[in-house]
């Protein structure tokens, strides 16, 4: 039992888990089973999923309070975010390999599906660079401001996804759990603010 608990609480093991999709994706590419072009979707999707997962933890905390499993997740939120960035970098590397030259990349940089991707990556950069204790100490209150960049970054990521994919479906499906939690939080806030109907009628 204690061995299981040690495994559950091991951060290196969690990182190993986060690396599993990359290993699977890269193995497919090395072996020649996956074209460079077809590396773009899985790496980008993994990045977006990890980003959404990290973003779900805050609203879950807000809804359920500091439960044990949420504390476990909260302790791994930074790992999820940094892993999302790592997959975004992998995604960018494969985009560069696939395009093959700067001229082709510049030619499409203003296409809706492309500038949104670059802009999202640009916003991810300060997020990733400040995902450490030293940056948290140095920036103090400003740290939270920097980390709030995740919201525009997420919006750009989902737009990038929808536009390169010619469909909003997949991007919206990934936004759905987050939107649901935000709605629940907002609904509860409204419910708390309104005086209870029972009180008003004096019952």
């Amino acid at each position, binding site marked *: 039992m204690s061995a299981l608990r040690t495994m559950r609480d091991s951060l290196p093991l969690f990182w190993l888990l986060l690396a599993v999709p990359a290993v699977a994706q890269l193995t497919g590419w090395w072996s020649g089973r996956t*074209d460079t072009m077809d590396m773009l979707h899985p790496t980008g999707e993994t990045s977006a999923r990890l980003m959404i997962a990290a973003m779900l933890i805050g609203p879950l905390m807000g809804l359920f309070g500091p439960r044990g*499993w949420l504390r476990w997740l909260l302790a791994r939120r930074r790992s999820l975010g940094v892993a999302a960035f790592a997959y975004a970098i992998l995604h960018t590397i494969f985009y560069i390999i696939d*395009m093959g030259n700067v001229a082709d990349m510049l030619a499409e940089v203003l296409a*809706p599906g492309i500038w949104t991707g670059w802009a999202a990556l640009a916003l991810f950069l300060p997020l990733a660079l400040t995902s450490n204790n030293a940056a948290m100490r140095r920036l103090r209150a400003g740290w939270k401001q920097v980390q709030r960049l995740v919201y525009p970054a997420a919006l750009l990521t989902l737009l990038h996804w929808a536009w390169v994919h*010619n469909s909003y479906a997949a991007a919206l499906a990934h936004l759905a759990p987050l939107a649901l939690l935000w709605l629940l939080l907002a609904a509860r806030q409204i419910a708390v603010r309104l005086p209870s109907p029972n009180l008003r009628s004096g019952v």
Partner: protein
Amino acid sequence: MRITALVLAASAGLAVMTATPAAATGAIKCQAGPQSGWKSTEALTAMLVKEGWTVRKAKVDGGCYEVYGTTPEGDRVEAYFHPVTFEKLYVARRGQVLFRKAGY
């Protein structure tokens, strides 16, 4: 109890994420009849190469042939062709529509 809630939440999230099919990008649709009446992707690729295209990949999408490649003008695009007539129906570059045949 906690584990149940966690598993429930995780599976619900996973269900939502995997509910949408990844295959069809759904840019346009073709009603071209049964596949036995279609010409081959090899023939389409050969025709396009002759016109000056570079073809990276050709596959079926939405009942049309979808081609990833470079146009004779040098644009990296995703293009749709009718699988029977090989008529060009749609050309887009990362969400920017460069050509769309009327009616499609």
